[in-house]
């Protein structure tokens, strides 16, 4: 590795630690969020340098794009409930807590790295040996949707649980929203179709390259978030059953496939190799729809049915 590459890596590592520290320790929540957005950007670049483009893609879609928007919306809500001056400020007393946490986490990680075997065997050889029967050629997708498909099933269910938790909270009072203005309106009209295309592309790419349902769902979900930010709302007849169907079709379809496979006498989520590719694509397509719908609805915060008719 050249000196330049070492420089890049050193700068990334230092930048990440500094940003993490500043984002946690800075007394102003808004500044903390902007620092966190910058942290997400650097994190994606760090994953690239670690030769993990799959994770970089997920970080780009979720970390840099959606999390920032979610945190900003949460901050806006917090400021409405309890304006900045009225919040009990415990941060001053806990100022050094993040540093302590960082030191502890760093020490733990250091110990873990030191205790690694010099040449960890890993599972790459086993994954590579079975890849031919998985239905896809991207090893990450093979692990996520075939060899350990139950992990992904549970992840999709966790997202559903998060939504249930958000929906059981008190609905936010409606708030005045300024007109979006022509520039934001045009941005949406140009961008939404391209976001749909990009999501479909990431879904397709997942079979052989970085991509897949979570990334595609995040991109499609971002389209929903942008539409919500511009003040676009679902028509009332779509907020009931159709929206709920979109939210559960991913986990539901996944469970149905798992159940059908159990009925044929196979172990949980072990696809017949001939059908594996098609089944994975089906599950991922449905999961993309559900993830997108769930992320957009989570951004909105409360149940859309509770919205007064516009």
């Amino acid at each position, binding site marked *: 590795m050249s000196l330049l590459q070492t420089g890049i890596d050193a700068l990334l590592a230092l930048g990440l630690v500094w940003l993490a520290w500043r984002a946690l320790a800075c007394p102003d929540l808004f500044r903390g969020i902007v620092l966190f957005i910058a942290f997400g950007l650097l994190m994606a670049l760090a994953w690239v340098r670690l030769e993990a483009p799959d994770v970089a893609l997920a970080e780009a879609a979720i970390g840099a794009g959606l999390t920032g928007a979610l945190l900003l919306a949460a901050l806006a809500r917090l400021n409405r409930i309890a304006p900045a001056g009225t919040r009990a400020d415990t941060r001053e007393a806990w100022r050094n807590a993040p540093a302590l946490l960082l030191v502890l986490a760093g020490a733990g990680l250091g110990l873990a790295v030191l205790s690694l075997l010099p040449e960890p065997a890993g599972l790459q050889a086993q994954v590579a040996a079975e890849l031919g029967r998985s239905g896809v050629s991207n090893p990450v997708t093979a692990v996520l949707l075939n060899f350990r498909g139950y992990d992904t099933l549970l992840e999709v269910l966790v997202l559903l649980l998060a939504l249930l938790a958000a929906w059981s909270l008190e609905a936010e009072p409606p708030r005045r929203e300024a007109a979006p203005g022509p520039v934001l309106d045009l941005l949406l009209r140009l961008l*939404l*179709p391209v976001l749909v295309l990009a999501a479909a*592309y990431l879904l397709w790419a997942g079979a052989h390259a970085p991509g897949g349902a979570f990334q595609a769902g995040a991109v499609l979900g971002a389209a929903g978030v942008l539409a919500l930010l511009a003040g676009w709302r679902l028509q009332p007849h779509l907020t009931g059953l159709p929206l709920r169907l979109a939210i559960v079709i991913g986990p539901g379809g996944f469970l149905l496939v798992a159940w059908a496979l159990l009925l044929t006498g196979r172990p949980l989520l072990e696809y017949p190799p001939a059908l594996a590719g098609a089944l994975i694509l089906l599950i991922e397509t449905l999961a993309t729809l559900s993830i997108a719908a769930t992320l957009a609805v989570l951004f909105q915060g409360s149940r859309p049915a509770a919205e007064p008719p516009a």
Partner: protein
Amino acid sequence: MQSRNPLRAALPLPRLLAFALVWWLISEGAAASWSIGVPAVLLASWLSARLLPPQRLTPSGLLRFLGFFLLHSLLGAVDVAQRAFRPARPLNPGMIDYSLQLGPGLPRVFMLNVVSLLPGTLSADLEADCLRVHVLDADQDNPAQLAQLEARVAGLFGLTLP
């Protein structure tokens, strides 16, 4: 204008071609991708046709606009770079009003966006027909520049300014 053919109204050919091109580019020409690409392009074209009415871009207007845009955005960047690099930081900003000749609609919003990419101008607000522009150098003839841009945008969309 209502198209007589409902299929062509829902899926206009120029949109189909444009989104097929976008798919071809983002998939870097992978032939196998069209199994998902075809439905995705159909969906995107349908969505786009619902969101944006068809525009009549003229090819000659497009070429002239592209040349104008590329040259002037480069000039704009050089201009900003000079001001940023010089130790004296030569800035004389101001806010000017420009009355638009373009009628309301997509061409006008398009112009609003391009204004911010061209030398020394930044669109700051739009009230009725009045475009408020923040300029880096109030001594320059900014309105003349804006009028030139407006003529190019009108040419791009096949319009004639009153």
